[in-house]
């Protein structure tokens, strides 16, 4: 059963009507070609209209859609081969942070790293809702250094509601783990591409999101705090999440306009969850194109450009 967001419902209703009509046509042997065609057009129009006028909060809802492709879905669809690598070699294997080597079209061996969410209640708990602990960030860094050692590019897929705010996470140095990743990612000698595929919440996202190219899928968000938490802190109530989402300017379009990301990967009409194959194919094409450009650069020039890019972010008055 598909999960429907409020603004997806009118479209789903029309789609349902279309199916009913086809059924009726077969049962009663009548020609409905003209009506079917007009209805199909109407659906497409409604889809276009709905999805070009989404509010920021609706984008946030789409980014969290339960049917949305997650890290492993993309990896599986993009790679002919994938070998998962586990553990931080110190404390544990964080199930919220996954990674391994994958092969793209026999052209590139890539180290994929990303937060992984679960699809049902049991999986969601197993993956800790995509909220890594410090060992997750340390595992990610271990994999990045391994990629660097074998001179393989890195692709990070970001999808997290935040780094886990738990007791043990604090004991094991959540802040230190994220800080070290951010710093060390700047010095990686191999190309790094980061793609926000769902939620990009704050330091928990940035801990694997420093790269030569930072891209966002069309229906995702990336900011310093979630709209809900922002609402609770600034408005002292959970009820202002829509306003908070507007104020935070957290969509792919906003982030691109503010020069905080390098580009947007378009999704199939209606969102990546409606056609994960097409979403992954588009992502793969973009990764290949960017890797070609990045691999052609001199190593130090690439590192310097990475540092300079972030150096320019910020608006001050002097």
């Amino acid at each position, binding site marked *: 059963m598909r999960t429907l967001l409020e603004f997806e419902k009118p479209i789903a209703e029309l789609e349902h009507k279309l199916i009913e009509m086809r059924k009726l046509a077969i049962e009663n042997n009548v020609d409905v070609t003209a009506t079917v065609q007009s209805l199909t057009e109407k659906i497409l129009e409604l889809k276009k209209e709905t999805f070009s006028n989404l509010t920021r909060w609706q984008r946030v809802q789409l980014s969290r859609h339960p049917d949305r492709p997650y890290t492993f879905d993309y990896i599986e669809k993009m790679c002919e081969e994938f070998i998962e690598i586990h553990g931080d070699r110190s404390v544990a294997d964080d199930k919220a942070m996954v990674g391994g080597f994958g092969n793209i079209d026999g052209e590139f061996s890539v180290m994929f790293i990303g937060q992984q969410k679960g699809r049902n209640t049991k999986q969601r708990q197993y993956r800790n809702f995509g909220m890594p602990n410090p060992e997750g960030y340390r595992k990610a860094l271990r994999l990045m250094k391994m990629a660097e050692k074998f001179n393989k590019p890195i692709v990070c897929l970001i999808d997290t509601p935040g780094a886990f705010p738990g007791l043990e996470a604090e004991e094991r140095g959540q802040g230190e783990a994220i*800080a070290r990743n951010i710093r060390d990612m700047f010095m990686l000698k191999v190309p790094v591409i980061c793609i926000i595929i769902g939620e990009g919440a704050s330091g928990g996202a940035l801990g694997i999101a420093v790269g030569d190219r930072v891209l966002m899928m069309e229906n995702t968000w990336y900011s310093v705090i979630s709209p809900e938490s922002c609402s609770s802190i600034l408005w002292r109530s959970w009820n202002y999440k829509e306003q908070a989402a507007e104020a935070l300017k957290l969509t792919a379009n906003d982030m691109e306009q503010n020069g905080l990301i390098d580009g947007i990967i378009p999704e199939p009409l209606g969102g990546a969850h409606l056609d994960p194959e097409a979403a992954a194919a588009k992502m793969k094409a973009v990764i290949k194109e960017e890797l070609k450009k990045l691999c052609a650069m001199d190593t130090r020039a690439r590192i310097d450009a990475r540092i300079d890019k972030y150096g320019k972010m*910020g608006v001050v008055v002097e």
Partner: protein
Amino acid sequence: MSWFTRKDKGIQTPTEFKREAPDGLWYQCPSCKKAIHTREHRLFAYTCSSCNYHEKIGSQDYFELLFDQTRYTELDALMSSGDPLNFVDTKNYPDRVKATELKTGLKDAVRSAYGEMNGLPITIAAMDFSFIGGSMGSVVGEKIARAIDYSLEHKQPFLMISRSGGARMMEAGFSLMQMAKTSARLALLDEAKIPYISLLTDPTTGGVTASFAMLGDFNIAEPGALIGFAGPRVIRETIGKDLPKGFQSADFVLEHGFLDFIVDRKDLKDKLTSLLGMLQK
């Protein structure tokens, strides 16, 4: 039945009456309640002579404590916030900044300067919690980045004194990227093998902990400082239990291996001088 009943519940002192540093003749320690003469309090680097409580002080106090004869040159003293997102919550952001500027006399939540500490050239950036909770926006990130650049250029140690609630929400994505901007410069400082000391004071949380504050060659803290990534309230809500006593205190963080040592503020200058001296010999 008690003799007196409280008429108003949850009486709270309005912010304008809360002081970071006292200005009367006597100072009452908020921890042990002992009254101390302000001259003595200053002599003890704004720590309590009886219980060692470290009063929350600002950048000016640290500059006075650490730079020889209080001689220093401030960097980017006039830099102030823009409003890249036209951010409005219950107030609009520029109004909030203006009001805070008037109240505190500061331009933003960090000040940076260079000078000498016991004859040793050093660059210091110190945060002011009184400016929107010491939150990090573009100005904080940019000033720290430039202070690090100054250290790099003049090959002198960098001392960062953090006191912050974390990111500045009103600058959203811009605020987040300051974590990356500052860490990038620290990567260069690290590469150049120039010492970086990060002093964490009460409180240091959120995006500041998850970037420059935890990246020191030496991470040190003042006694009793609250240091963490997530704030205590958020953690309590997540785990649904009360937090153990001393959780996220400087001692706790030292015990778990994320601090090199805890230093009393009155010993700070000399201890830092010895440490940096050893690195130079």
